[in-house]
C-alpha cells in the first residue's frame, strides 16, 4: 500500500473491487470503452471478411458472360447480404469502434457516460449480426436487396424466412446503434474535460456528435418501417400491400426506407470525414484549415441529409414538382461537402507533409470521395438520373463514396490509432504496399463500372449475354476485386506482425495534437491519472508548446472558470499527467484513488435476451419467451446492481 501513501490518498478512499473477472470473462463483462472499442473493431473486421467473400463470389460469377457458377437465387442472397453486411455490420460498427476508443480520450474523460449501456450496444450488435447471418445455415438468406423494396418483401412474393432474418436482424441491430448514439451524444455533451468547450473539440469528436444525432433521429423511422414489414409478414396487416381491394402503397416503404436511408449514408461517411480531419493536420504539421467551417459543414450535412431522400425515387413517378424540389436539395447537400474538401486541400497546402500510410489513406479518401461525390451530383439531375437509375453507374458511384470514402477513411483511422490501442506501430513499408494494392485494386474494380453503367448494364443481374460490350470491363472489375482481397490479406499480415513484434509506439508516435496522444499507449484503464485542463483547440499541441497558448492570450484561470458551469473545481495543475512522465505512475486505478466501474454480466444477458426475443418469430415463440425472461431479468438486475464507482 506504499503507493497509496505516496499519493496522499487514504486506502479507504476507494472501496475494494468486489468482482474481478480475468481472462476471457474480463472481456465478456468489460465496461471499459477501450476494450469495447477493440471488440467492436475485431468483430466488424470479421464481418468485413464475410462481406468481402460475398463480393468476391459476386465478381467471380460476373467475370465472364453466361456464367452458371452461382444460382440466380443464391446470387440475390449474396448481393443482399453483401450490402446489408457492409453497411450495418462493417462500416457502422467500425466507426463505432473509433467512437469508443477515441472520443473519451479526445475529450479528456475516463469513460463514456453509460459504460454498461456501451457494453449492451456491443453485445446486441454481435448477437444481432450473427442472427442476421443465420440464414446462410438454413439456405435462406434475405434476397430482396439491402433496401428490400415492397412488394418484393411481402409474404405472398417472398414466403421464406430469409426476409424475416433481414427485418428482425435490422430491428435488433438498430437498438444497438441507438443505444450507442444516446451514449455518445450524452458523453460528448456532458463528459468533456474542463476547458474543452464545444468549439475546441477535435473534429472527429464533432462528427461523432453529429452522427449520433443522425442515428437518434433516423433509426426510429427504419424501426417503424421494419415493424410494419414484420406485421405485414406475420400478423396480416396491409402496410405495403398494393393488391387490388386493399389499396396499400408500396411507395410508403420507399419513402420510409430512404427517409432513413439517406441520413444513413451520412452516418456512414461523417465518421470517416472526422478521421480524415484528424489525420491530415497531424501529417501536414498545420492546424486544420477553417476548423469552424468544417464543423458547421458537418452540422449542415446532417440537417440537409433529412431532406434529399426522394433522389432515390426519381423514377417512381412522383411528378415534376417533387423531383425539382429534391433535385435542388440534393445539389445543396453537395455544397457543405465541397466546402470540406476544399478545407482538407487547404490544410495540406504549404504544410510539411509526411506521407505515412495513414496520411496516404486520408489523401485517398479526399480524392476518391470527390470522384464519388461528383458522380453523385450527376444523378441529382433528374433526366440524367433516369438514364443511370438501376445501372452499374450507380454501383460505381456508391462504392466510390462508401469504399473510396468510408473504408479508405477508416483504414486511415486504423493506421493512425493502431499504435494508441496496441502500443505498437504497424509496419510502414508493408502499410504503404497495402495502401497501393488497395487503391489500385479499388479503382480497377469500380472505375470500369462507370463505363458498364453508361453502356446500359443493369444492377442485380446474375449474368449477362455475350456481345453486349460488357465482357472486357466485367473481367477487369473482377481482377480488381481479387487485387483488393490481396490487399486485405496484406493488412491482416501487417496486423499480426505488429502485434507480435511491432516497434513500441510510445505515447505520441505521430507528434499529435489531440489529448489521446498525451497518455501512454495502450492507455491505462483510467485513461487520465489527472483530468487535463484544456486551453484551446489542439489541446495536446498547446500543452507541448505552451508559448503558443500565451501568444493566443489564454490563461489557466479563465479557462477553468469558463467551463464548469459556475462550479468551482479547485486548482488543477496540468498539463503534467504523472502517468505520462514515469512508468511508476502506471499504477492501477485503485492505488490512484480512481473509481472504475466493475464488469457486469447484465448487458450480455439482456443483449442475448433481445436477440432471442426477435429470433422467436422465426424459430418458435418459446424462444421469444426465453428471450423476454432474459431481458426482464437482465434489466432488473442491471437497475439494482450496486455500481462501484
Amino acid at each position, binding site marked *: 500500500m506504499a503507493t497509496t501513501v505516496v499519493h496522499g490518498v487514504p486506502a479507504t478512499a476507494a472501496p475494494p473491487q468486489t468482482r474481478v473477472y480475468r481472462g476471457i470473462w474480463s472481456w465478456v463483462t468489460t465496461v471499459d470503452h477501450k476494450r469495447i472499442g477493440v471488440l467492436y473493431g475485431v468483430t466488424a473486421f470479421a464481418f468485413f471478411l464475410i462481406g468481402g467473400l460475398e463480393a468476391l463470389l459476386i465478381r467471380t460469377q460476373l467475370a465472364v458472360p453466361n456464367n452458371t457458377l452461382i444460382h440466380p437465387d443464391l446470387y440475390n442472397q449474396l448481393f443482399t447480404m453483401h450490402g446489408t453486411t457492409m453497411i450495418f455490420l462493417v462500416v457502422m460498427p467500425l466507426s463505432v469502434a473509433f467512437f469508443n476508443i477515441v472520443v473519451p480520450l479526445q475529450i479528456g474523460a475516463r469513460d463514456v457516460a453509460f459504460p454498461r449501456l456501451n457494453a449492451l450496444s456491443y453485445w446486441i450488435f454481435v448477437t444481432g449480426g450473427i442472427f442476421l447471418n443465420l440464414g446462410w445455415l438454413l439456405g435462406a438468406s434475405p434476397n430482396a436487396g439491402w433496401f428490400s423494396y415492397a412488394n418484393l418483401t411481402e409474404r405472398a412474393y417472398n414466403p421464406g424466412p430469409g426476409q424475416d432474418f433481414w427485418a428482425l436482424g435490422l430491428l435488433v441491430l438498430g437498438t444497438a446503434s441507438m443505444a450507442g448514439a444516446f451514449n455518445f451524444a450524452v458523453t460528448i455533451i456532458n463528459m468533456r474535460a474542463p476547458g474543452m468547450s464545444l468549439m475546441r473539440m477535435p473534429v472527429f469528436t464533432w462528427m461523432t456528435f453529429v452522427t449520433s444525432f443522425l442515428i437518434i433521429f433516423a433509426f426510429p423511422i427504419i424501426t417503424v418501417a421494419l415493424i410494419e414489414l414484420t406485421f405485414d409478414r406475420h400478423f396480416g396487416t396491409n402496410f405495403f400491400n398494393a393488391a387490388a381491394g*386493399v389499396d396499400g402503397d408500396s411507395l*410508403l416503404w420507399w419513402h420510409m426506407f430512404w427517409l432513413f436511408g439517406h441520413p444513413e449514408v451520412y452516418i456512414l461517411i461523417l465518421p470517416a470525414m472526422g478521421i480524415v480531419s484528424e489525420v491530415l493536420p497531424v501529417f501536414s504539421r498545420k492546424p486544420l484549415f477553417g476548423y469552424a467551417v468544417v464543423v458547421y459543414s458537418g452540422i449542415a450535412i446532417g440537417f440537409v441529409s433529412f431532406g434529399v431522400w426522394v433522389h432515390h425515387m426519381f423514377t417512381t413517378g412522383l411528378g415534376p414538382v417533387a423531383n425539382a424540389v429534391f433535385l435542388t436539395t440534393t445539389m445543396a447537400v453537395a455544397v457543405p461537402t465541397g466546402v470540406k474538401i476544399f478545407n482538407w486541400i487547404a490544410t495540406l497546402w504549404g504544410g510539411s507533409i509526411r506521407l505515412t500510410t495513414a496520411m496516404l489513406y486520408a489523401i485517398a479518401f479526399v480524392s476518391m470521395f470527390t470522384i464519388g461525390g461528383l458522380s453523385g451530383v450527376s444523378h441529382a439531375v433528374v433526366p440524367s438520373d433516369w438514364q443511370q437509375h438501376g445501372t452499374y453507374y450507380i454501383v460505381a458511384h456508391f462504392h466510390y463514396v462508401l469504399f473510396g470514402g468510408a473504408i479508405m477513411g477508416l483504414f486511415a483511422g486504423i493506421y493512425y490509432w493502431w499504435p494508441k490501442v496496441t502500443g505498437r506501430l504497424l509496419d510502414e513499408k508493408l502499410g504503404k504496399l497495402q495502401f497501393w494494392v488497395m487503391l489500385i485494386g479499388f479503382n480497377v474494380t469500380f472505375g470500369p463500372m462507370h463505363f458498364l453503367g453508361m453502356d446500359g448494364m443493369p444492377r442485380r443481374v446474375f449474368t449477362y449475354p455475350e456481345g453486349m460490350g460488357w465482357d472486357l470491363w466485367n473481367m477487369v472489375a473482377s481482377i480488381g476485386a481479387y487485387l483488393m482481397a490481396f490487399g486485405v490479406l496484406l493488412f491482416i499480415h501487417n496486423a499480426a506482425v505488429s502485434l507480435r513484434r511491432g516497434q513500441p509506439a510510445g505515447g505520441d508516435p505521430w507528434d499529435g495534437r489531440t489529448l489521446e496522444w498525451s497518455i501512454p499507449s495502450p492507455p491505462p484503464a483510467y485513461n487520465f491519472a*489527472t483530468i487535463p485542463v484544456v486551453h484551446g483547440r489542439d489541446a495536446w499541441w498547446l500543452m507541448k508548446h505552451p508559448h503558443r497558448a500565451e501568444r493566443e492570450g489564454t490563461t489557466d484561470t479563465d479557462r477553468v472558470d469558463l467551463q464548469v458551469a459556475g*462550479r468551482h473545481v*479547485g486548482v488543477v*495543475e496540468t498539463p503534467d499527467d504523472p502517468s505520462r512522465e514515469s512508468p511508476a505512475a502506471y499504477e492501477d486505478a485503485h492505488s490512484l484513488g480512481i473509481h472504475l466501474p466493475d464488469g457486469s454480466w447484465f448487458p450480455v444477458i439482456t443483449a442475448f435476451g433481445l436477440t432471442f426475443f426477435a429470433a422467436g418469430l422465426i424459430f418458435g415463440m418459446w424462444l421469444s419467451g426465453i428471450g423476454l425472461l432474459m431481458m426482464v431479468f437482465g434489466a432488473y438486475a442491471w437497475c439494482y446492481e450496486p455500481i462501484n464507482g
Partner: protein
Amino acid sequence: MEHAVATAHAAEHEHRTSTGLDNRKLVMWAFLASDCLFFGSFISAYMIYRGRSPSGPCPHECVLNGVHYDGVFNIPYTSVSAFVLLMSSLTMVLALAAIQRGNHRGLRIWLLATALLGSVFVGGQYFEFTTFYQKGLSLSSNLFGTTFFVLTGFHGAHVTVGIIMLLSLLLTSLLGRLPASDSLTVELTGLYWHFVDVVWIVIFTVVYLLPM
C-alpha cells in the same frame, strides 16, 4: 501532484458534468426526442392511408362502393379515457413533489394512483379494441384497421411499460431502497410518463377528432 490527484478524486465524487445536468436526464430527453420520430412515423402512415380504405369499417359513418358502414369510434368514451390518462400526469407530478420533500408515504400513494389511472386507460383501450374487433375491424380488414391498431397498440405498449416502471418504483420504495436523494429516478419516470400522455393528445386529436 498529491493535490491534483486529490482534486480529481473529489471531482469524481461530485459527479461533475460539463453542463451541470445529470447524464441520465440528458439521455432520457434524447430518447424522448427519438421516440417522437417513432410515433411520428406511425402517425404519418395513418395520415397517408386516411380515407383510402376501399372497404369498411370506417372510423366515422361512411359509404364505400355503395355499402354503408357505421363508424366504430365512440368519441365520448375515448374522451373519458383520454381524460383519465391526462389526470395521471397530475398524480405523477404529485409523486415527484412528494419524494422531493422526503414524503415517502405521499410518494407511494401518488405512484400507485398514477399506475392505477394508467391501468384504467390501458383497460379502456383493451375494451375499445374488443368492441372494434366485434364490429369487423381487424389488423387485416382494411388500411384503417392496419394503421389504427398498430399506432394505438404501440402507444398502449408504451403506457404499459410506464405502468411497470411505476410499480417497480413503488416496490423499490416499499423495500426502503428509494431514498429522497434518488428523486431523479422518479423524475425520469415522470418525464417518460408525461411524454406518453402528450403523444396520446396528438393521437386522440389526429385519429379521433379530426373530421374526414
